[in-house]
């Protein structure tokens, strides 16, 4: 691993994706230091390693971000930051979630710019930021328009955070990388599809069977590590190894599908969430259940050397 990526600070280190990344970094003998940042003290559940430093920081406070990077990160000589604004629970919404998604991202950008040791910031985003217009191609490359018209909520927060990083490219002293991941089907990663598949009976729009692209945790981790090791900056699509229609996904996941007219799904899922405290929100995922979306990963393949290589195991739980 190159020098720029041997001392890494990882936010959200106790989420599914964050913990997998920390494990992978520690498994590499070339890694000199990993600073695992989590909201609470659950960081102590990570496997012990002399190179691992745990930090319990409430990143929703901008001052905490500045103190973290100016203090422990500088002292430990952190050279790269991986920031993934993932929440364990997708149903969290409102100003608190927006502060964690958009506010923390902006605070990290400010704190990394001009930092004496940090050379690289990898923002792990989602391909859900792309728009769903009829003119959008099936395979979306990095030039596709973002969903600027998204309703306030999870998706719009992601668009704003992604845009915040993109707008700093070229003017920041830190090399900025945005990874737009395909649907990461893993627990504790804030995946709407994961929440959708938790119910034994999954409602789906009548008359539609979209093609979906799924990313495994192994591939997500590999892509992030490639982004840390590469020299190139910019935006990269991170595609997955599984491309399949929704109907096949439900069969592989061992779920029963109940097709219903699309307008009925929103109220039904809201009622289900109230009764059984389910996580899935249909209003945030409606477009994906009607019209599928795949990613063009040619740029990541060319500049990062990343290609999906780890299909999901079925069922994924």
């Amino acid at each position: 691993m190159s020098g720029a990526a041997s001392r890494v600070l990882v936010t959200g280190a106790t989420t599914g994706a964050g913990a997998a990344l920390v494990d992978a970094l520690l498994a590499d003998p070339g890694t000199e230091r990993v600073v695992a940042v989590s909201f609470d003290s659950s960081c102590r559940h990570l496997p012990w390693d002399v190179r691992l430093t745990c930090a319990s920081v409430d990143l929703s406070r901008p001052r905490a971000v500045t103190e973290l990077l100016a203090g422990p990160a500088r002292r430990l000589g952190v050279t790269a930051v991986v920031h993934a604004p993932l929440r364990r629970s997708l149903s969290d919404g409102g100003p608190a979630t927006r502060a964690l998604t958009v506010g923390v991202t902006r605070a990290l950008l400010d704190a990394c710019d001009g930092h004496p040791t940090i050379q690289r910031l990898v923002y792990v985003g989602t391909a859900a930021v792309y728009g769903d217009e009829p003119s959008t191609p099936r395979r979306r490359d990095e030039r596709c328009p973002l969903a600027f018209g998204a309703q306030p909520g999870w998706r719009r927060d992601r668009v704003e955070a992604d845009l915040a990083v993109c707008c700093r490219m070229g003017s920041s002293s830190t090399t900025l990388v945005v990874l737009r991941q395909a649907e990461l089907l893993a627990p504790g990663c804030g995946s709407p599809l994961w929440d959708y598949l938790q119910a034994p009976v999954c409602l789906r729009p009548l008359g539609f069977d979209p093609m979906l692209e799924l990313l495994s945790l192994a591939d997500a981790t590999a892509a992030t590590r490639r982004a840390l090791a590469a020299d190139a900056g910019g935006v990269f699509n991170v595609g997955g190894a599984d491309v399949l229609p929704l109907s096949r996904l439900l069969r592989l996941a061992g779920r029963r599908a109940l097709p219903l007219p699309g307008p009925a799904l929103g109220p039904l899922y809201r009622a289900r969430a109230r009764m059984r405290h389910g996580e899935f929100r249909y209003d945030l995922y409606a477009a994906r259940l009607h019209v599928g979306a795949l990613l063009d990963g040619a740029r990541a393949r060319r500049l990062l050397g990343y290609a999906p290589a780890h299909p999901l195991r079925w069922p994924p739980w």
Partner: protein
Amino acid sequence: MRDFLDAGHGYDEFGLAAAAVDRAARLGAPLYERYFRVDSRGAERLPADGPALLIANHGGTLPVDAAVLWLDVLRRTGRVLRLVADRFVPRLPWVGVALARCGVVPGTLQDLDRLLARGALVAIFPEGVTGTGKRFADRYHLQAWRLGHAELARRHRAPVVPVAIVGAEEAWPVAVRLPLHVFGAPYLPVPATPLPLPVRLRLRYGAALALHALPPGPDLDDEPAALEAAARRTRAALQQLLEDTLAERRAAHHPAGRARRGAAR
């Protein structure tokens, strides 16, 4: 199945499935052989492999011409033709899924670039909705002619094969076009007959055009004149092919023609 690139679960990235193609071919066989009695000539002009663009005339309430062209190419070459549909088509319930399983793709430039880069056989109807919306009196007269096929052909150095489809523009004419934009469609067509009429369909494949061999411009994006010239050439070739096929049909129905056939029997 040729031209099928499995994305890992038995479907290609656009939703094409081999089982669906087989099923559609079996269901379409009686329509092809007995209802429309398709008379196809010139399919040997299609390349056995590699990219190529088919351009054809378009008309009628629903794309009977596209369906018959798809069946014909499959039966004669074994290749799955990737028909290009308007962008609202994939968003139609049931119809969008069924067409995707048979290889129909939305008409976005990036998607077509991908297909041609992989050596696919792609069919475009450059008239677009102006073709299906034309008046019955304007049948077989090519309407507004888009340039996208010329750009793709030059970029991918793909031969362009004009295909004249005679019969489909009369089989199911439109009586009224209602200004209702259901699922994003430009209008809601009301057919003159409840079902397509059993008009005999003639498919004629013309000589392939090498648009990439036309004089190059300094940059593809800066050569609109070259693209327009290429598109005019394809339009002229297809219009001539249509006129020849219509003349052939008239001759076949002429009393002198019937007498000659009777003598031959």
